[in-house]
């Protein structure tokens, strides 16, 4: 028999919850735990975003992430929810030209921002060159991480062009190049469980070659 759960060993009686998370700045969050449930949610907050070139006015719940605003409010379901915790990259979109995880940011924090999703990059009859390269090199299988991979791939080549260094750059001060190693490191925030990595790298290499 394994030992029984042994977790009351250091129970010290519950302290006042007051100081629970003082470490993370501001006032203690733990205080909220003792409060009764709200009977009504706070009023929605208006926010205006430019999504794929179109201004979209929303009044989401303050808790609504940019990801859920895109998927559930604007029905732009190309941006995927894989983990909802910044651990997979399926939700990658470009905000003001820079890639981010749309699951870890609130829609209300993007007033006036320009958001580009996979739908904004291209359409089946008007593919973005990166989308076409993914098809040519079979850089996807189940397709679920694919929009995030493609958004990230577009942004990665731009980051290399702008000279942003990476973990694998041999020199911090030289201009990085779009080598296989550089692209793989920079794409590592986009998990593909089907394992299309080798093909994605080839699709990106083709586009990087075209570009430069």
């Amino acid at each position: 028999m394994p030992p029984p759960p042994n977790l009351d060993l250091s129970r010290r009686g519950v302290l006042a919850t007051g100081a629970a998370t003082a470490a993370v700045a501001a006032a203690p969050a733990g205080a909220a735990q003792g409060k009764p449930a709200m009977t009504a949610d706070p009023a929605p907050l208006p926010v205006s975003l430019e999504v794929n070139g179109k201004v979209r006015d929303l009044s989401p719940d303050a808790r609504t992430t940019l990801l859920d605003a895109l998927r559930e409010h604007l029905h732009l379901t190309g941006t995927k929810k894989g983990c909802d915790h910044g651990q997979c990259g399926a939700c990658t979109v470009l905000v003001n030209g820079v890639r981010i995880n749309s699951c870890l940011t609130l829609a209300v924090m993007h007033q006036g921002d320009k958001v580009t999703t996979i739908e904004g990059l291209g359409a089946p009859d008007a593919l973005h060159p990166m989308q076409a390269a993914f098809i040519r090199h079979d850089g996807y299988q189940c397709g679920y991480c694919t929009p995030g991979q493609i958004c990230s791939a577009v942004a990665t080549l731009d980051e290399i062009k702008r000279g942003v260094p990476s973990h694998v750059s041999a020199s911090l001060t030289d201009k990085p190049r779009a080598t296989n190693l550089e692209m793989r490191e920079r794409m590592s925030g986009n998990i593909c469980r089907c394992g299309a990595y080798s093909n994605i790298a080839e699709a990106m290499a083709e586009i990087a070659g075209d570009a430069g």
Partner: protein
Amino acid sequence: MKAFTYERAASAPDAAARAASTPGAKFIAGGTNLLDLMKLEIETPGHLIDVNGLGFDRIEKTDDGGLRIGALVSNTDLAADMTVRRHYGVLSRALLAGASGQLRNKATTAGNLLQRTRCPYFYDTNQPCNKRTPGAGCAAIGGVARQLAVIGTSDACIATHPSDMAVAMRALDATVETITPRGETRAIPIADFHRLPGETPHIETALAAGELITAVTLPKPVGGRHVYEKVRDRASYAFALVSVAAIVHKNGAGRVAVGGVAHKPWRSEAAEAQLPDGARAVASRLLADARPAPDNAFKIPLVERTLAAILDETRAA
């Protein structure tokens, strides 16, 4: 995620005052860690103060030849800053070793310092955790501890601090600048910023309620070879098993801070004084008081061997 009210801060003093006077208030900047934890109700702020508009997004030289990094500078921008790349390479390297491109684009300098532990028991609200509920007990002790701390632990907590950036900041003797709810500014040496768990693992930093980080400053460059070695099972996008930030000079002297081993970046001036004697001398001094669990005892030789790599490569360079 509990419901909350939301405001965009008008000014730093105002934000700090509002945070101190509003029950359950928290600042949000990048949000990459806070929202993650709010979804799990590990963080449950009743009010969010969005500080993104406060303009702390510049990197500028200080009068004494150092660098002042705005609290809101993104991890990407900080790592890519040419002054940082040239003169504080260990900081660039540490940032680039952390998280992913997407996360670094959003994560801020202050937020990175304030990251909370990745202890899996902290992340599971079904399990007792003294960080989440002081006095509840610690499920990590006696549990799965491969990722967890080996030194500076207590009977209440064996969590590690997950930041890479903070380890480099510790090696660089950074200073955290804040504004208090009363509108005063304060400078906190990085060594004093993060706390050991002790009996109060829920208190993780020296910040007071409502206190807002405005910048992190670095002293003038110290030269030397800057290295950040991060050891992990997969090649990228993973938290460190251990990491070593080092600045090594030609004469063999230098600085060493270690990540992945403690509740804060781990550095000892007495240990790094042994650098000319080699990695074993430094590591055995640095980790002399380690109390590892069976599944993380490997971190102790791993620190030594990682430092040995740095010293060998520095000699060869």
